[in-house]
């Protein structure tokens, strides 16, 4: 039981559907930016997306090939470990299922890698079955570099650090290998509904 903070009432914003806001989160209309380093600006003609690691043969797409893949429009709520949630965000991108359709693997995990050196790890079951995408449009516009453009991972059922910005590939791995923030004490899985913010939560 938390003790009462004398004199604290809160400034609660009415939320249409409180059931959509995980514990410890607040809803914002804004779209805050968080990143560990400068925003990379990879030209599209130098961009590619690669799936490698524990696979029969690596696959890679150039930008034009990537955006020609079957795409989906996704409207989801997103939840950042820094406590903000944003409801009904609209994205367009390619589902990880589509990317893995022709990939033979026995791996159970993957590591997403980004321009700038960022990595994050996911169990394959958190990235497949219609739960993860590589998104290149936000709100009907090309994804802004500060928000991860040209393309970012979108894994809305986990805290948003798992949705790696500037993503350039997925490396499939037999073992779970902690990524960047996961090594710095953040939770390995990051389910916002279980409030898995940090190690041990």
């Amino acid at each position, binding site marked *: 039981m*938390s003790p009462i903070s004398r004199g*604290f009432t809160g400034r609660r914003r009415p939320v249409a559907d409180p059931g959509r806001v995980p514990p410890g989160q607040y809803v914002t209309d804004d779209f805050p*930016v968080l990143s*560990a380093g*400068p925003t*990379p600006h990879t030209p599209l003609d130098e961009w590619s997306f690669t799936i490698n690691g524990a696979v029969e043969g690596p696959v890679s797409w150039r930008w034009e090939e990537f955006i020609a893949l079957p795409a989906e429009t996704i409207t989801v709520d997103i939840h950042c470990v820094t*406590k903000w949630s944003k409801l009904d965000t609209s994205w367009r991108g390619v589902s990880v299922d589509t990317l893995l359709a022709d990939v033979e693997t026995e791996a159970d995990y993957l590591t997403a890698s980004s321009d*700038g050196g960022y990595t994050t790890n996911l169990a394959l079951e958190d990235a497949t079955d219609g739960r993860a995408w590589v998104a290149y449009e936000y709100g009907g516009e090309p994804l802004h570099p500060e928000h991860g453009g040209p393309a970012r991972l979108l894994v809305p059922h986990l805290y948003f650090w798992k949705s790696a910005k500037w993503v350039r590939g997925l490396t499939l791995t037999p073992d779970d290998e902690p990524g960047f923030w996961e090594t*710095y004490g953040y939770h390995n899985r990051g389910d916002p509904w279980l409030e898995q913010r940090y190690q041990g939560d």
Partner: protein
Amino acid sequence: MARTALPGRLTWQLARVVELVDETARSKSIVLELPDWPGHSAGQHVDVRLTAEDGYQAQRSYSIASSPEDEHLVLTVERLEDGEVSPYLVDELRTGDEVELRGPIGGYFAWEASLGGPLLLIAGGSGIVPFRSMLRHWAAGERDTMARLVYSSRAIGEVIYREELMRLATEDGVELHITLTREWPDDWQGHRGRVGRTLLEEVAWPPAAHPLIYACGPSGFVEAVAEALVAAGHEPGRIRTERFGPTGT
């Protein structure tokens, strides 16, 4: 991106307010006593949790202003007018009150002597807070690397830790550059205007000196500073950023 593991579980604990220090009209330092603080690295932050009488809770993150060597944990909080937690911490909290917190959190936006330098810290507004921790830590150590602070503030009255920064400059050898962006006294000897390419060419070490750079402040400030540094030829992997607030994009 180099990494060091930070093991252990972060449990909520009750911190008692032992002192409140007015820093500026909008910001206060909260000096805390904790029963069981595991220690922290300079630059890390904590989560603070408040609970209303009906059980409603709100959590926010705040940078740690004290250095690992300090006796007490200190947070410096700036009041955001439409905020939920910061107005309470700045205006309502009293000495003797208790607040729940857990930490330390983070670890990439942190500095210790083994990371070397030269250390270039670039702050916008209340982005100065983690740098107070880093500079106190630097001053407490061997100082075998140079440290330079570039601090952008709207006006002289909004400069947090003004006297302490002057002391760090005159007594400890921190190279201090304050720039005022909105208004300045008639006799102002410091810099004027935003931190951009021109000011950085004047006050930052050149890329050839391989400075280790930390930038902290409002999102637009950090984006602009990081872009200017990369454009000037600084290695992106030597630039660590921490941002807060809205972006508008």
